[in-house]
């Protein structure tokens, strides 16, 4: 509706700090992945594992935060942000196109992974499911994700968060450079 340009890093970065600081001032803290544990607890996973037997009601505020982020995504995508591609670096465009992601450089998200056709492609469904499993398993093992470790943890100068962020990059670089080039052409 408003056709705004995407925010550059020097707007988006400080806005994230603002949210982190505001949550601290209200007595909470920024960290999204702990919600995955809370959701499993609500679904009854506590019957099968101790990890999910905790006072999840104390985490309700974080689910409210997540609900807000969903609305925020909708508001930004459908009302604020101009439709159009993510302006990617040239090497990213050529490398992804060579792997069969033809809309690299002309779309915001690849239609091959996030388009409506996905539901009729079992291999894509498996890939998204498996990728999601790694996100859930990994963030709980590391006890935090990008927001918990890279933002909240590093901001409070904690070594474990630095180790975790190094881990994020070891895993991500391996997949992007050595595994996706083998898998993406199959989709």
């Amino acid at each position, binding site marked *: 509706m408003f056709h705004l340009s995407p*925010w*550059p*890093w*020097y707007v*988006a*970065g400080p806005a994230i700090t603002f*949210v*982190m600081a505001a949550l*601290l001032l209200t007595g*909470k*803290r920024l960290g*999204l992945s702990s919600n995955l544990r809370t*959701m499993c607890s609500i*679904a009854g*996973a506590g019957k099968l594992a101790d990890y999910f037997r905790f006072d999840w009601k104390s985490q309700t505020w974080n689910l409210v935060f997540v609900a*807000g982020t969903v609305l*925020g*995504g*909708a*508001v*930004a*995508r*459908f009302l604020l942000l101009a439709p159009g591609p*993510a302006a*990617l*670096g040239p090497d*990213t465009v050529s490398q992804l196109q060579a792997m069969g992601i033809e809309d690299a450089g002309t*779309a*915001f*998200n690849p239609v091959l992974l996030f*388009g409506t056709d996905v539901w009729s492609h079992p291999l894509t*469904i498996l890939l*998204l499911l*498996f*990728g*999601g499993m*790694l996100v*859930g398993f*990994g*963030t*709980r*093992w*590391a*006890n935090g*994700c990008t927001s918990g*470790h890279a933002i*909240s943890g590093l*901001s409070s100068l904690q070594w*474990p968060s630095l*180790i*975790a962020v190094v*881990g994020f*990059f070891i*895993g*991500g*670089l*391996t997949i*992007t450079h050595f*595994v*996706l080039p083998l898998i993406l052409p199959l989709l």
Partner: protein
Amino acid sequence: MPVIFILGVLFGITLTMGEIISWFRIQEMFLFDSFHMYGVIGAAMGLGILFNLLARKFDWKTRNRRPFDIYQYEAGWKRYLFGGAVFGMGWSITGACPGPLFISFGAGYVPVLIAIVGALLGTFIYGLVMRKLPS
């Protein structure tokens, strides 16, 4: 709670306007082909450090006059390095960390629901096997 919800909305808007929920931007980051994501995380972290240092120096408190709820991670390295690497792999495949998983759904990229189901499944499996993992 309304304040928390509004902060969530702001967070969702920020990660969408900053294109942090774009799968392409995550690939570009891991290909070292743009400063964008490093700028976002670096600026957020740098200002965050500044905020925490000022808070400590001037003894800032929450609105209920309590100390900030800063999570203190247990010492160690295995769970952070190995768990972090597993998450990093998923971040590259799905193009989404836990925040963007939910924000992307709001932004209308509905198949991300499959990755959300996967993330809940992965969390559940972690809960089952956590005692056997190095921590």
